[in-house]
């Protein structure tokens, strides 16, 4: 009786083993890599005029080989439990490094409850917001290096486990040499998840867009915005210099500066909540334990916003038109809804032309030159 009970317990485990579990076998002995040259070439990113300096951690400087290793790992499936998905499945370059879906789906077909965040210019987020809450919609990670460790372990994402993946990488025919060139490790057993995270972070920091956008070129006087784009710009920045009495669309309170984000967390009226504890998804508040921060989510950059639909942390809006309509209405009541939205709620609605002007302006933030850069294509 006892035996059959245990057999029953083992059955599901067998199914799992026959399913997507791939247990990697670590090499019995570490292989020396010292015969492979290690000659790191530092990379200094060139930023468009007016962009801030990107904060770089002292223990993870950018190098050509570090970025290339990160590129390989980013597009590879090797970081997932069953080798079926990689970072680039949810962060596809053509969708502005999102996946174009409302919710991303992991290797087990389980849908998450957040939309994949765009990764363009993500390196500027480091060490900017308060309390080290920099990454993810709810600010749960302080740095790219810490964030990069998470999807592999997450059961609704890549659903792997790091010891196995470290074994895979150590036994792999090409990765040990790439790690050697990137980080100067002396043997395969020095390949760790921390180095994976560092390489992925280097690659992500290299993704900088904006310089080839119409808006940026217009800022430099190299191109002219159309009348509609220009009206949208003035509404966006509350800077009507033409006396047309354009309304303030209140956008720049959160989408300000060269990155079109304040790098902060805001309740933009997506969830109704009678009190601070009534949010279905508390966002930042769940992470830091403060009721006043419930319902707040990270303000994303708007560079290439036309590529990153659907919009908001849970992909609530399929189009930019829906986004503008939401803000025009001021969103839904909650105690800590951004004050600017209350103003929008009480102000006269935008005209169809004004909405079209705002959207025309948002289109000028499109810079797709990176799509033809081999660095952002799969090496496989």
């Amino acid at each position: 009786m006892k035996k059959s009970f245990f057999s029953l317990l083992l059955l599901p485990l067998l199914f799992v083993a026959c399913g997507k579990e791939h247990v990697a076998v670590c090499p019995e002995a570490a292989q020396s890599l010292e015969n492979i040259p290690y000659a790191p070439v530092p990379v200094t990113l060139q930023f468009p005029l007016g962009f801030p300096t990107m904060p770089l951690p002292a223990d993870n400087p950018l190098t050509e080989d570090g970025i290339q290793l990160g590129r390989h790992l980013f597009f590879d499936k090797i970081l997932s439990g069953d080798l079926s998905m990689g970072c680039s499945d949810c962060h596809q370059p053509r969708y502005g490094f999102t996946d174009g879906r409302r919710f991303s789906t992991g290797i087990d077909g389980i849908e998450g409850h957040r939309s994949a965040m765009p990764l363009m210019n993500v390196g500027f987020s480091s060490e900017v917001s308060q309390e080290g809450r920099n990454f993810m919609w709810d600010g749960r990670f302080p740095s790219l290096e810490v964030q990069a460790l998470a999807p592999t372990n997450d059961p609704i994402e890549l659903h792997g486990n790091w010891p196995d993946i470290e074994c895979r990488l150590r036994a792999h025919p090409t990765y040990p040499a790439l790690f050697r060139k990137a980080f100067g490790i002396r043997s395969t057993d020095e390949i760790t998840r921390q180095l994976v995270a560092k390489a992925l972070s280097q690659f992500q920091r290299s993704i900088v867009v904006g310089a080839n956008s119409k808006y940026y070129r217009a800022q430099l006087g190299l191109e002219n915005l159309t009348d509609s784009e220009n009206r949208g710009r003035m509404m966006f920045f509350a800077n009507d210099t033409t006396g047309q009495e354009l309304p303030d669309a209140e956008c720049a309170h959160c989408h300000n500066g060269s990155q079109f984000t304040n790098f902060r967390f805001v309740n933009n009226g997506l969830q109704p909540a009678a009190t601070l504890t009534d949010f279905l998804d508390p966002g930042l508040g769940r992470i830091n334990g403060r009721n006043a921060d419930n319902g707040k989510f990270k303000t994303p950059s708007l560079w290439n916003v036309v590529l990153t639909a659907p919009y908001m942390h849970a992909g609530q809006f399929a189009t930019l038109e829906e986004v503008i309509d939401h803000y025009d209405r001021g969103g839904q009541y909650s105690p800590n809804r951004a004050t600017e939205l209350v103003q929008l709620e009480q102000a006269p609605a935008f005209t169809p032309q004004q909405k079209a002007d705002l959207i025309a302006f948002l289109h000028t933030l499109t810079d797709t030159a990176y799509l033809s850069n081999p660095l952002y294509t799969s090496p496989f």
Partner: protein
Amino acid sequence: MNKSIVIFSLLAVLGLSACSDDRCPVEQIPENTFLELNFRAEAQGQSIWYFKDVDYPLGDTHIRISLLRFFLGDVTLLGPDGDTTVLDIHNVDFSLNQSDQTTADLGETVRIANPPVGLWTGIRFGIGVPGDLNRMSPADFPAGHPLSNPSEFWDAWNSYIFAKLEGQSDLDGDGDYADDNSSFLYHSGTQAQYVTLTFEEPFEVKPCQTARLDFGLDVPHLFYNATDTLDLVNNTFNHAGDPDDPDFAFTSFVMENFRSAIRWKN
């Protein structure tokens, strides 16, 4: 034998303590001497925090704060032999001490390393960004610098936002904020609104010690002066740094009220 070791050890400990208290070696002063300015948000002498219900100084209205921050500029120690500026800029942001009475009681502390030691006759600081810094923009500062965040800069003014005061109003004082759905926002900036406060109160910075100056920020006082009180029905949304903007008077009003709202508490 054992007794002499114990006595010797005790004397050694006492000796070390005396050294750090009274005879701080000169080379240790820079690393171990601090001046702290503590700002506690208050109403009627009691600490307040975000979303804490507070009496408004007009009618039955109550308010609750959802955002309070200001730049502290050019902190200068006043002395008989001259003044010394010890801090260029700091963003005093109450967002971190907002959640409850315990955290609100702590206030926001600005910690200044290695201030000059001695007896000082007072302290002066500005509310806002001093002119030389306000001619710059967030891209000019490294990440983590108080002036690096674009959230605190307003392109249309070409200026930092000196102070932000936001919250909600319960206009009829019935305890229900939702039925009024009334908010206020006062964002002030540009050089004409820079306010300087001087406190002629003596204090001492001792070597290898932390001198602490406590200030109360009476939040309701930001809304009124001797003759006027902000109208939370008709002037609720004022984001103005341009003197030509009709709302400029309201945001200037808030900035000027910092003079009476910040009180020396030591």
